[in-house]
């Protein structure tokens, strides 16, 4: 998806990274700037219904993560379970108090007034939650939400590629191909590779990206070859490097 929003956000990420390779911390700082929020936290899926804090920008963000872990409820927990964003634009409302009877008052006491939880997911691949908070009530504007979603996608890519053995540089691949949100063939190919290699969707997707990167080809083009059965991934070949076999 190469559109204005993507380049707008990536220009900002570049400013925050200042030439070094992009980290999750850079993405959090960028999110604070472009979405106009006071802090950000990233939590990762640690089990079927468990999240654990990965990084937070400040004590309030850390407290929001901790509260949800201890209380077992909150916007991030819901976002992860339901696979959708949860936009709690004012925790002081009756609706929020009813939805999260323990979390809402505790988060307010910690200094947060609005919490926006964006799932870090690519279809069935669930990585965690990107949580933004504000000390004042209020939702994100359309532009702020667009930018926050693009940053959440980028966090996904960064997490996946870091987890990969000899994985590609997320920054390089994202700059070249954009984010693979809209290309149906990429997701179809992920499903096919999952069966070919007998791995999880997450690993299959990482391998697909690694192959595209290693071959210096566009992700969508490689995925099209997989779907057309011109390219197969072979489990016996060099498992780390995402080797594919032209058929």
């Amino acid at each position, binding site marked *: *998806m*190469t*559109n*204005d*929003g*993507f380049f707008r956000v990536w220009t900002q990420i570049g400013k925050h990274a200042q030439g070094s390779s992009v980290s999750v911390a850079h993405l959090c700082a960028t999110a604070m700037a472009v979405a106009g929020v006071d802090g950000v936290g990233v939590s990762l899926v640690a089990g079927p219904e468990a999240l654990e804090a990965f990084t937070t920008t400040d004590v309030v963000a850390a407290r929001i993560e901790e509260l949800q872990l201890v209380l077992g409820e909150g916007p991030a927990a819901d976002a992860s379970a*339901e*696979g*959708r*964003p*949860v*936009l709690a*634009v004012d925790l002081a409302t009756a609706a929020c108090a009813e939805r999260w009877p323990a979390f809402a008052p505790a988060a307010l006491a910690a200094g947060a007034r609005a919490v926006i939880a964006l*799932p870090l*997911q*690519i*279809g*069935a691949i669930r990585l965690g939650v990107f949580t933004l908070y504000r000390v004042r009530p209020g*939702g994100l504007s*359309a532009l702020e*939400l*667009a930018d926050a*979603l*693009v940053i959440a*996608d980028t966090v996904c890519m960064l997490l996946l590629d870091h987890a990969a053995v000899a994985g590609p540089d997320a920054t390089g691949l994202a700059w070249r191909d954009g984010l693979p*949100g*809209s*290309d*149906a*063939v990429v*997701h*179809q*190919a*992920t*499903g*096919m*590779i*999952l*069966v*070919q290699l007998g791995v*999880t*969707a997450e690993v299959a997707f990482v391998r697909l990206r690694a192959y595209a990167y290693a071959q210096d080809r566009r992700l969508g083009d490689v995925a099209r070859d997989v*779907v057309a059965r011109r390219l197969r991934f072979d489990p016996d070949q060099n498992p780390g490097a995402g080797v594919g076999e032209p058929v």
Partner: protein
Amino acid sequence: MSEHRLAEVFVELADTLVADFDLIDFLHRLTVRCAGLLDVAAAGLLLADQRGALRVVAASTEETRLLEVLQLQTDEGPCPECFHTGQPVTVVDLADAADQWPRFVTEAHRIGFASVHALPMRLRTEVVGALNLFDTRPGRLSPRTIQLGQALADVATIGLLQARTISQSSMLAEQLQAALNSRVIIEQAKGVIAERHQIDMEQAFLRLRATARAGSRRLSDLSRAIVDGSELV
């Protein structure tokens, strides 16, 4: 088309809107009925992603080439224009639009389409997506057919809203993102099924949908189970 058939379709679609219904299956059903009722070759629905692009959520056939033509409209084609203006866009003969949308027209011609109509999915002052109607003959649809197409586009919007009570724009954002991610899960599951049974993506989708319907499961729930490996289809 007969009034009777028309009434049947609207009743069928309305009947689908029960509590906890399957949004993607509903939108797929709607595009299939669109193609049949409006006598066009294919219909597809695109929703506006809050990231700023249009994304395919349903099509009357799951043929990969059709999905790709629909998706090309992220950048060019009648859908972006329809989406930005909130007005229907008609391309009587795609050959005349080759300069304007070179990639879209080339790919549409490749599958044999000659004309296309885009109708907006409107919610109050917002446009949330667009319905695409493709035909193999050049020409304009009759005003009555357009009117009916717009009614079906409105039904699609109702379906989107109905899946959750939407009281404010933040709820719409939640709903749209959930629908778009469901679509990704379905693509992943189609890949799993296609590879396991050595069939194409359209056959994989039909198999997925038949299994979901037989077990009264939501497409997205079943798809997730397939991708997680907890269920074999």
